[in-house]
């Protein structure tokens, strides 16, 4: 079974936030609106986060797109009392929206704060409901459950169905999440980390590669390549 992972080359990423928008349009995350966004409740699974260090004029500003790390030893799955969040056999951390009781222990446990909570029932004006992605996996979630980046599992399923329909063996390069496809700097790579020949695992072992909070032992599967 493939072990999906992603590499983001910060030298080619230009913080254009296309991934943030693509992720929302692909996965129907709700719009929070002005008052909710002010309270910090905007749900953007694949947010780009700005970090600034230094005094004027010597400033280092890094902007890091942060999808879910889909850790191999995730801090969130350990603490879920009902196994509403689990890791499938391909290493992707998912959430079962029908079983989640909304206790939010996983959201406080995750060191990367990638998990979002539906504080209210998501709603769209009547006209805008038309544009929602009809895939069953991304049906808008009810209020009171946690949701997060899923590496676009609906695209994986469709890629498998297409491979099956075309009668060929599904291989790891047939499927990429929406953010990888739309990255304007072609900075995102996606694939099977267990396959040594895949571009992803080669880049993951490049000297420029680093991961967020490696010391925590969560073994994240999203690698970043140093800028510059």
């Amino acid at each position: 079974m493939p072990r999906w992972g992603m590499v983001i080359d910060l030298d080619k990423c230009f913080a254009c936030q296309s991934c943030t928008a693509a992720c929302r349009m692909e996965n129907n995350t709700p719009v929070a609106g002005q008052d909710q966004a002010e309270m910090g409740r905007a749900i953007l699974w694949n947010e780009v986060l700005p970090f600034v260090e230094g005094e004027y004029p010597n400033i280092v500003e890094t902007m890091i797109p942060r999808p879910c790390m889909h850790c191999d030893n995730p801090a969130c799955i350990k603490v879920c009392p009902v196994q509403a969040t689990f890791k499938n056999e391909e290493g992707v951390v998912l959430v079962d929206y029908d079983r989640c009781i909304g206790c939010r222990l996983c959201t406080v446990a995750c060191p990367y704060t990638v998990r979002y909570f539906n504080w209210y029932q998501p709603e769209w004006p009547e006209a805008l409901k038309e544009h929602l992605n009809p895939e069953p996996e991304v049906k808008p979630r009810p209020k009171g459950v946690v949701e997060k980046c899923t590496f676009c599992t609906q695209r994986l399923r469709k890629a498998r169905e297409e491979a099956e329909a075309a009668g060929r063996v599904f291989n790891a390069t047939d499927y990429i999440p929406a953010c990888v496809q739309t990255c304007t700097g072609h900075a995102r790579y996606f694939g099977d980390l267990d396959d040594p020949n895949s571009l992803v695992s080669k880049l993951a072992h490049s000297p420029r590669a680093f991961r967020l909070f490696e010391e925590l032992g969560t073994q994240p599967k999203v690698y970043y390549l140093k800028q510059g």
Partner: protein
Amino acid sequence: MATNPKSSTTNTGLSRRDFLKLGAVTVAAGAGLTALKSVDAPQSPQAAAAEERIVKTTCALCPSGCGLDVRVVNGKAVKVEGNPLHPLNQGVCCLKGQTALEMLYSPERIQHPRLQMGERGSGDWKEIPWDEALGLLSDKLTELRKAGKAHTVALLHGELRGQMRQTVQRFMRAYGSPNMISRDSLGEGAARMALWLSQGINGLPVYDINNANYVMTFGGNLLESSRNVIGYLGATAFMRRGRPQRGKLVAVHPRLSATGAKADEWIPIRPGTYGALALGMANVIINSGLYDADFVRDFTFGFDDFEDADGNKHQGFQSLVLESYTLERVSNITGIATEIIARLAGEFATNRPAIAVLPTEAGELSSGNALYTALAIHALNALVGSIDALGGVIVQRFPELKDWPTYSLDAAARTGESKERIDGAGMQFPLALSAYQNVPERVLSGKPYPLEVLLLLNANPLYDMPNDGRTLEALTKVPFIVSFASTLDESAAHADLILPASTFLEIWGDDYLEGTGYAGISLRRPVVEPVHDTRNPGDVLLDLAHRVGGPLAKALPWKDYQELINYRLSNFDWEKLEANGNWSEMIYFNAAPGSQAWKDVLGRDRLNAPQDGRFDFFSRELFALLGSDSDLACLPHFEVPATLTDSTAEALDYPFLLVTQPIITQSAQWQGIIPTLQECYGLQGYVKWDSWVEIGQKAAEALELHNGDRVWIESKMGRVQAAVRVRAGMWPNAIFLPPGQGHHTFVRWGRHADDASVVGANPNALSGFSTEPLSGLAVCGPTRVRISRV
């Protein structure tokens, strides 16, 4: 499972087997309970076999014009992705394109043509059918034309894509009005004029960043809002990681934008002094002899001092720069240390091919010295021989399309054409093609003639240049205003008649491939049935042409815009064009200096300057126009912006300089309407659904301001309110307000939608808009402002 004999003999209390049995019973009980639980409703059955197709079209939310693949399920557009077969974006799609569906289905769109019943701006609209609306307008136009006042009709337009520009030109010219006023005097007019005066090409410079080794952007926001953002994003990524030798990107701007942060070096500079830096670098390059001597000797003019035909002496570029743009002086003007300027110049000259990028965004070159700053920056490219070199500044080629049918002007059209333009371009501003920001002043003064009808196409003058109410005053003086807006923006609210334009996902059209260099055309086609009762402005103009009849009908003989497109693109293989969504030559052939092709890239559009294939440091075009009274006016030089030389009293009263810089989350006419763009509007200050004012650290400490405080930003023209963001990356006395917010149309969203109010503030309200004497370009910055706590 073989029973374990040992366990059966030890029957003390619970044997292991009993324990297992007990365990099994409990698990069964648990399982029973689970079974009870999971009897709830099964997963909703998959929707009826969805009728799904991918439609290829072209985006219109920024000047790039990327190719899009729109997935349509059961007649509804559900996902926008990049078209992998499109040479510009190669399958990627920026966040504006992704959220195009929130524009298509936005509740803020105007659904039917409307007529203003009450007093303008009262919002008392009556929805009328298209026939009635078009009849109303065509009667007015025919009546004016008959009365010989065709010239009193003016059209203000923003971005016109593909054939639309020439369609509108033919309409206005055949109708008999010279007043087709484009908005590019606010933004890309400077770059276009600099290229024409120095290189003799009437177009915008295109930068071959893929093959460049050193890219230096003066102002603007190359990676967020330049004219060909997506192309340059991909090219910069290729320049860095796609090739063995990594190119360097340097961003010069008073504010640390996303381009500055991602560049290899950010050079903070005093606002409005880019020209001085360019000339300072030229000084160092010439001084140290690093310039491309062969190219300068053989293919440029005006580098050395020279004598004109009737014998009087003229100063050349070299002596001007060496004389008056020494490192010390430039360092004082720009505030950049001398060694940094020297190093930048050295790097620029030695890492060839190097590019000095001209900004084309609105408000970037608007400090009163726009023309000469642009000339100075472009001259750097000539100094290092990057003109049409591989990895240098190239010229955009256009495909040959089927020729427009010829048409002749009738008497009314000829008289109209001879009249002076309402915005003064060509007369008051000899070099200008149009002077958008000068229209309100001229309308108010009533000279040269009062306007009767004003058409607004992709233009929102009330938002672009409020001028503390003078633009509104000017609009009220125009008896009849027609707007083609899709949403009730500020100017449309003061129109008499609104002919709502469809979004780019519902219309036929095309886009020239601009920003890649090689010729190409990109098709735009309806993705879904029009969501509301709206029409393509192209169809509306053709319909009007037929209603007015006469030469207009002959100039635009087509029944609708689709037919026009089919006609113009008829020499392409239509099936392939529809299948791929575009056609292009894919490869750009650089013209070697002096070769036969060199004529197409240098001097092609020169009017009264010789087409001798020489780049003009000393602009002979300007010389022919201005005569020989002063050399300086023909050479790139630096004029200190007015606001920097203000009297100390004014400087004390308004200590800060307002800097504008467009950001990537700001889409053309749909600002403030698209919720997802509002939700990731300010990345670097992490601001959502709001405006913010960026202040330098020292200034914030002096005023004891912290992140999030609400403050007033006040200039002579007006005042707006915003939340403070203390930014390390900001020129000490500069502040920044994001453009694109403060619209009166905003999407009512979220729980407290009904009492939603204006999101953020409009920075244009703070600037006074005047015009540069020679070039007609807008002067609106850097505005002097002061900050006070709310």
